[in-house]
């Protein structure tokens, strides 16, 4: 179990895939010390971000309604210090470049590994 903070870290998981949301939520909760919020598209993620200001956002790229890059842009407009990690199946150099330009702190190619989640969480812990 990885206990990161005395208060649970708020993590927003945004992916249109029910399976990926479930897998990420299960993995995060198993690591411990987190409170997980879920969004199934970019628009929902922006709304949840405004209300809860999570310490970390795990954001898919290809989604209906509002895609990951546009969502990232809007979250950054709300909070320039937002920590957003892209998790995507289409990890092309072009998508990586765009995401980093918009302020993503990391870019994970699916299928993700638990070590990558731990690394992202540790990075946020280092900032707190």
């Amino acid at each position, binding site marked *: 179990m990885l206990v990161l903070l005395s208060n649970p870290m708020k993590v927003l998981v945004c992916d249109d895939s029910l399976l990926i949301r479930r897998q990420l939520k299960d993995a995060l909760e198993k690591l411990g010390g987190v409170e997980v919020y879920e969004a199934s598209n970019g628009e929902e993620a922006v709304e949840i971000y405004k209300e809860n200001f999570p310490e970390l956002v795990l954001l898919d790229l290809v989604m209906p309604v509002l895609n990951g890059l546009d969502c990232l842009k809007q979250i950054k407009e709300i909070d320039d210090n937002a920590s957003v990690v892209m998790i995507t199946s289409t990890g092309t150099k072009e998508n990586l470049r765009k995401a980093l330009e918009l302020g993503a702190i990391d870019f994970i*190619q699916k299928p993700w590994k638990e070590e990558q989640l731990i690394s992202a969480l540790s990075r946020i812990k280092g900032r707190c």
Partner: protein
Amino acid sequence: MYDKFFGSYLLNKNILTNESLREILEHMQTVRIKVGTLAMKEGLMNGTQVEEVFQLQKVQDKKFGEIAVEKGYLTNAQVERLLEHQSEESNLQLGQAAIDLGYLNYEQLDEELKNFENESGLSKIQLKVLEEGDTDKIIREFIDFKDSPHSQMYYDYVALLLRNIIRFLDQQPWIDVNKKKEELAQNITVYQYLENYSRIFTGISISQDEIIEMAEKFGKMSMKDDMEMAESAITEFLNLHNGIFTVNMSDQGREYEMSPPAITKEGTIDEMNAGHQIGVNTAIGKIHLILAPY
């Protein structure tokens, strides 16, 4: 892949059922090819002779090769050569597994192997390509994308799908030789558009009876009575596969963007009817791949 085509042939002839074929496919990974089976495949012995030697082995404390030499069916040099190739031969694993599990005897296997080569409708070149087992060659021999724009990419797409079925579904796939389009209206079909460098409709269609088990393999979790999660898993499998494909294409300077994946459970959509349909068999079910320019 030769032996899996042979399995499909036995299924179509009603010599095996779906259940027995599945049991054989699961068992065949651990099978050791017997010298007699190899001798039969190479035409050095017939099924009756192999059966006879195995029966004699039950009452004599001798190896198969020794008895076969004594009976005059094989020479010592042939036995030595067969033993050398015993571990290399993979095209006979299905037949050996069918014998080990009691679904065929040696005489039946001998006869059906000959029938397969004569009745399967496959050319000598196609049979040779199957025996060699080179996936890229098999795809090119059995799927005709020649009239399609960007045919090379389509071949690459299918080859990657086969690798991803092994990687993410833990299944050994083989292409359906029967090129007839199947009715997919009752299936669950997930699809995704790729666009930019060119425009490709991609879809995979799976019967409702088979989707749960495939989804569980991908999601690595139980999905009994949870069709929504199973559909999500198959959708994500296509999304993941397409993502890897777009990365590969990007590395070659061909940029694609992916639409969010979608699903249809009733009827078909136009691109499915107009596109190429490629059947990919696995031990746990069949995946119909649909590829179409749009």
